[in-house]
C-alpha cells in the first residue's frame, strides 16, 4: 500500500476489484459464482443492475460456459471480463487454451484457491500456477491496491496490438478478496484516459468474413504456437512499460515484472508470489534489525517468466529460498523449478531451495518465514534438501 491519501477508503478487496473492473468498462461480463470469487461478481452484477456500469452481464450454467461466452464476445470486438477460482478455473481448462490460441485479450481475476480432492475452499495458488502453460499472461498481486491497479493495467497489456493475449490477475482468495483495508479506488476519468476504448485489429464481422481458431494442420500449427510464444516475450517489455505509465498517471508502482525489498545487499533472498509478501516484509524488517541480511524478490509476472530480470536481481545472493503456495506433484513446485531453469545456463551458481507452504489455507506467519530463513542459512553451506513441505504435521501422517 502506498502512502495514505485523502482518496483512500476502507473497503472489501472484492468490492475494490469490482470497482476497478467497472472503471475498465467491459462490454461483456460472464462469470459463474464460486467461493471466494463470489463477492467480485456479486458486486459487478449489482453495478450493472444499478446502471452504474453499462455492461452485458451474462449469467451462465458453469465456468466452462462463462469463458466460452467471452470467446464470442471478445472475437466480435467487445471488451470482455470474467473471474473465477479453483475448480472453476479447472472447469475452464479447455476454453483457456481456446482463448489464448485465438489471441483474445480477455482479463480474468483469479481469486486463488485450493483444488479438490479433498474439498477445500481456502487459499493457495495451485489453481493458477497449475495453469501456467495455457498461454495466458499471469500477474500475481500482493495487496488489494495492487489487485485494483493490476486489473486496469491488464487490459492495456492484453489489448496491445503486439500482445493480444489474455491475462489472469491472480489475487489470494479470502486473504485479499475478503480483507477490508484502505484502498484508493480508481478515478473513472483517469482510468478512461489510461485505458481508451478497445480497438481490435481483427474481429468477427459478417461484412468481412473470417474465422478464429478453426483448424491448423501440422504445416501451420507450430507457427501459431510460436507467435503466442513471441507475444509473451514481447509482453516482458509491455508489462514494465504499462506499470511505468500507470505510475505516471496514478503515482503507484509495484514493479513491472518483479519487485524487490531489501534485496540489494541481501545474502539470503526469498522469492515468492502473492499476498504472503506483506508478511515476509514484516519478517525481513525484524530480521534486519537483528543484523540478518535478508531480502525479497517478488515475482509479479509469472507468465511471461522474467528470466533476465530475475538473474539481474538475484545474481549477488548467497542463497535463495522460494516460498510458494502450490505443488507440482511428482516434481517440486512451479516457481522453484522455473527459477532453477532460469539460472542453469547462466554463470550464476547459487543454492536454491524450495518450500511449498500455505496449501489449502494453512496460515503463513512471521515465525514460518524465520524458519525458512534459518533453513536457507544452512543450505548456504551445503544443500541438504532441495524441496520441502513447510510445517508438515508428521503426527497425523
Amino acid at each position, binding site marked *: *500500500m*502506498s*502512502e*495514505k491519501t485523502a482518496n*483512500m*477508503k*476502507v473497503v*472489501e478487496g472484492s468490492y475494490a476489484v469490482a470497482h476497478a473492473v467497472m472503471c475498465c468498462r467491459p462490454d461483456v461480463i460472464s462469470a459463474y459464482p464460486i467461493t*471466494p470469487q463470489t463477492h467480485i461478481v456479486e458486486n459487478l452484477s449489482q453495478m450493472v443492475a444499478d446502471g452504474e456500469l453499462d455492461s452485458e452481464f451474462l449469467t451462465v450454467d458453469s465456468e466452462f460456459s462463462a469463458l466460452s461466452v467471452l470467446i464470442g464476445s471478445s472475437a466480435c470486438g467487445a471488451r470482455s471480463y470474467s473471474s473465477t477460482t479453483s475448480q472453476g478455473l479447472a472447469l475452464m481448462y479447455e476454453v483457456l487454451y481456446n482463448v489464448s490460441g485465438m489471441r483474445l485479450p480477455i482479463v480474468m481475476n483469479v481469486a486463488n484457491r485450493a483444488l479438490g480432492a479433498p474439498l477445500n*475452499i*481456502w*487459499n493457495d495458488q495451485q489453481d493458477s500456477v497449475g495453469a501456467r502453460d495455457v498461454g495466458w499472461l499471469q500477474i500475481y498481486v500482493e*495487496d488489494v491496491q495492487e489487485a485494483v491497479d493490476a486489473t486496469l493495467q491488464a487490459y492495456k497489456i492484453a489489448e496491445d496490438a503486439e500482445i493480444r493475449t489474455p491475462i489472469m490477475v491472480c489475487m*489470494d482468495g*479470502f*486473504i485479499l478478496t*475478503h*480483507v*477490508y*483495508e*484502505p484502498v484508493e479506488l480508481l478515478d473513472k476519468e483517469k482510468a478512461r484516459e489510461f485505458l481508451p476504448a478497445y480497438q481490435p485489429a481483427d474481429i468477427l464481422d459478417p461484412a468481412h468474413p473470417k474465422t478464429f481458431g478453426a483448424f491448423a494442420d501440422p504445416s501451420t500449427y507450430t507457427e501459431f504456437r510460436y507467435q503466442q510464444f513471441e507475444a509473451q516475450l514481447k509482453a516482458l517489455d509491455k508489462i514494465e512499460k504499462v506499470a511505468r505509465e500507470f505510475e505516471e498517471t496514478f503515482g503507484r508502482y509495484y514493479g513491472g515484472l518483479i519487485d524487490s525489498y531489501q534485496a540489494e545487499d541481501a545474502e539470503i533472498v526469498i522469492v515468492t508470489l502473492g*499476498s*504472503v*509478501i*506483506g*508478511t515476509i*516484509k*514484516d519478517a525481513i524488517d525484524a530480521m534486519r534489525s537483528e543484523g540478518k541480511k535478508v531480502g525479497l524478490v517478488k515475482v509479479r509476472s509469472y507468465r511471461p517468466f522474467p528470466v533476465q530480470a530475475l538473474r539481474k536481481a538475484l545474481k549477488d545472493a548467497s542463497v535463495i529460498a522460494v516460498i510458494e503456495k502450490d505443488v507440482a506433484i511428482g516434481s517440486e513446485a512451479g516457481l522453484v523449478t522455473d527459477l532453477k531453469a532460469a539460472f542453469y545456463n547462466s554463470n550464476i551458481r547459487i543454492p536454491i531451495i524450495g518450500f511449498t507452504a500455505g496449501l489449502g*489455507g494453512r*496460515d*503463513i*506467519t*512471521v515465525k514460518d518465514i524465520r524458519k525458512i530463513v534459518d533453513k536457507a542459512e544452512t543450505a548456504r553451506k551445503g544443500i541438504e534438501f532441495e524441496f520441502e513441505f513447510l510445517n508438515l504435521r508428521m503426527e497425523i501422517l
Partner: protein
Amino acid sequence: MKEIRLHGRGGQGSVTAAEMIAVAAFEDKRFSQAFPAFGVERRGAPVMAFARIADQPIRIRSQIYEPDYVIVQDVTLLDVVDVAAGLKPTGKIIINTDRPREALKLKTDAKVITIDATKIAMEILKRPIVNTTMLGAFCGACKEVGLESMNKAISERFKGELGKKNLLAIKAAFERVS
C-alpha cells in the same frame, strides 16, 4: 500495532464488527485491516474475525495469535473456544455476559471487562444482535478507536432509524464501561 480478535457465532455480525473497527480506525487517521477467519459459514457456529490498527501501513497477512484485545459476543463460546488464547497480559478482553467476571473463570492475566450487551441491545434495538453494542464497549474500554469515528462508521453502514438506534446502543455500552 494493535491486534484485535473477535469471537462470535455465525449470524452475530462479527465480521461486520471487525470491518467497523477498521473503518473507524481509518477515520481516526490510522491504518487498519479487518478480515474473517475464513471458514465455512454456518449460522450459530463459532466464528472469528480479526482487525489490526497501526500508525503505519499494515502489510502482515497472517491470522492473529497474540491479540491486544479480544471481543466475545456470546458467553456460551467460553465453553467451546479458548477465547483468551494468546491474549497479551497487558491486553483486555470484553465479554458479553450478565454473569460477574469471577464466575467466568477465564485463564488470563489480561483485564476482563464484562457487559450485558444483550440486555442493552434488547432494550434499544429490540433484537439480540450485539455487535454494535460490543463496539461501543470496545471504544469505551480500550480507547483505541474514537467514539465519534465509530459512530460515523456505523452511520454509513446502517442507514436511517436502524443507524440511529445502533448509535444509542453504542453510547449506552460506551458509558457503561468508561
